[in-house]
C-alpha cells in the first residue's frame, strides 16, 4: 500500500450488518469515502440511515462486516489516539466534574497539557468558569462545549461529531456551529460531522455527502468550498447550497 499524499482517512466498501435477536439489520451498505488532511465532510441523511454506524466504524469503535478504514494509510481496527469523537448525548460522565471530564483523555493516556494551552482552549470554548461544576449543573449548550473541550485537548488530527447540536435550540446551535468552524480554522484538524440538519451540513461541511437508507449509502457528494468559512450563514450562496442539498435529500426519500 502506498501512503497517499495528503489523505487523512479513506474507507472502502465499508459495510455493517448488526445481528439482532430477530435477524440481522443491514445498517450500512458498501460505503466509500475519503477525507484530506484538514478537510471537513458533512454526512447528512434521514434518521436511521446509518450515519452513526458509519461514524463509529470510522472511529474504530465498531468492526465492519466488510470493507476497511485506512487512517493515514494504515488499517484502522481500534480507536486511534489522533481520532476524537463527540456523541449526540455528549458522553460526559456525570460523576466527574467538568475539569475531570475534560482531562480524562489526558489522564488515561498519561499525558499532560501545558496549562497555557489548556486555559486558552477553555477560554475559546467559554467554559473556564464551569470547571468545578458537574455536567448536570450545565445547560445543553455548555455540556456540548465541555464535550468539545474533552475532544480538542487531545489535539486530534480527526474530529468526529455525531449530531453534535441536535438537542439544542436554534440560536445556541448556530453559535456552537460558528464556534466549531472557528476552532477548525484555528487548529486545522480534519472533521466529519454527522447531521440530519441541512443548514448544519452546509455550515460545517466543505464537502457534503447525502445519504440514503436501507442499507445506508452515500448517494451524492456535493462540494461546498465555503463550508466553515466566516460569515457564511445568511449569505445568498449559503441558501443556494442549502437548496441544492435539500433537492438531493428529497430524491432519497
Amino acid at each position, binding site marked *: 500500500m502506498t501512503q497517499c499524499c495528503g489523505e487523512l482517512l479513506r474507507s472502502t466498501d465499508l459495510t455493517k450488518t448488526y445481528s439482532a435477536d430477530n435477524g440481522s439489520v443491514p445498517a450500512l451498505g458498501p460505503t466509500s469515502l475519503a477525507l484530506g488532511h484538514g478537510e471537513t465532510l458533512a454526512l447528512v441523511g434521514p434518521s436511521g440511515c446509518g450515519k452513526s454506524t458509519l461514524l*463509529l466504524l470510522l*472511529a474504530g*469503535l465498531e468492526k465492519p462486516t466488510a470493507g476497511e478504514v485506512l487512517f493515514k494509510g494504515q488499517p484502522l481496527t481500534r*480507536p486511534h*489516539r489522533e*481520532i*476524537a*469523537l463527540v*456523541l*449526540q*448525548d455528549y*458522553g*460526559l*460522565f*456525570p*460523576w*466527574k466534574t467538568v475539569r475531570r471530564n475534560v482531562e*480524562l*483523555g489526558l489522564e*488515561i*493516556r498519561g499525558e499532560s497539557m501545558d496549562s497555557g494551552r489548556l486555559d486558552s482552549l477553555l477560554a475559546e470554548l467559554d467554559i473556564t468558569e464551569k470547571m468545578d*461544576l*458537574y455536567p*448536570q*449543573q450545565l445547560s445543553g449548550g455548555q455540556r456540548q462545549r465541555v464535550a468539545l473541550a*474533552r475532544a480538542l485537548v*487531545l489535539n486530534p488530527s480527526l474530529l468526529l461529531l455525531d449530531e453534535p447540536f441536535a438537542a439544542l435550540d436554534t440560536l445556541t446551535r448556530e453559535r456552537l456551529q460558528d464556534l466549531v468552524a472557528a476552532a477548525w480554522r484555528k487548529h486545522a484538524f480534519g472533521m466529519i460531522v454527522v447531521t440530519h440538519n441541512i443548514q448544519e451540513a452546509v455550515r460545517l461541511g466543505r464537502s457534503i455527502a447525502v445519504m440514503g437508507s436501507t442499507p445506508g449509502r452515500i448517494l451524492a457528494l456535493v462540494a461546498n468550498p465555503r463550508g466553515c468559512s466566516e460569515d457564511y450563514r445568511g449569505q445568498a450562496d449559503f441558501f443556494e447550497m442549502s437548496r441544492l442539498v435539500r433537492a438531493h435529500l428529497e430524491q432519497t426519500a
Partner: protein
Amino acid sequence: MRTWRSYLLGASLLLAFWQIGAWWAGESVLTGPATVLAELVSESETSRFWHHVGASAWRVIAALAASFATAVPVGLVLGSSRRADRFVRPVINLTYPVPKIVLLPLVLLIFGLGDTGKIVMLSLILFFQLLITTRDAATAVSRSAKYSLYSLGGTRRHLFVHVIWPSVLPAVFTALRIATGTVVAVLFFVESIGTQYGVGFYILDAWGRADVPQIFVGIVVLAIMGAVLYEIFDVLERVFCRWKQM
C-alpha cells in the same frame, strides 16, 4: 445536623404514641416507653448487655462485609460481560426465589452453630440482593458512555474505574441500605439457635422469663442498630457519590 433533629422529632413522636397506647391499654398489656427506657438504662450498666450488643453488631457487620466483598465483584463481572451473564443468569434465577432462611438448618450443619454459621447465613441472604442490584446497574451503563471512554483511549480497566464502578455505586449503596433492614430481621432468627449471646438471644431469653420490659429493650436495640447502619450508608453515599446531590 438536620438528620439528627429529624431523628429526634421522629423518635419523640414514636415515643408519644407508644406512651399514649400504654396508658390506654394499661402497662400490663403494653409496657410503656418510660418503663422500657428505665430498663434500657439499667441494662446498659451491665457488661452482659454490651456483650449481647457486641455479638450482634459483629455478626451484622461481618455479614455485610462478606456479602459486599463477594456479591459486588461478581455483579460487576456479570453486568459487564454478556457471555458470563448468559451462563450464570439461569443459576441465579433458579436460586434467587428459594427463601434463604429455610437453608438455616443446612448452613448450621455445614458451618457449625458458632459465629461462622450465623454469618454465612446472613451473608447468603444479603448476597443475592447485592448481586442482582449490582449486576443490573452495571448492565444499564450506556453504550455511548462506553464508546466515549474507548475513544479517549481507555482500556477495559479504565472502563471499570471511570465508568462502570462510579455509575454502579449509588445502586450499591441503595442495596446496602435495604440490606440493613433484612439483616437485622434475619439476625433474630439465627440468634435463636446455638448461642448465649446476641440481641436475638436476649429477646428470646427475656420472653422465656416473661420479662416484657426486656423484650422491648431488645426490640429498641435492634431498631437503633438498623437505623445507625442505614445512616452510615447514607453518609458514605453522600461522600462517595457527591455528584448525585447536584
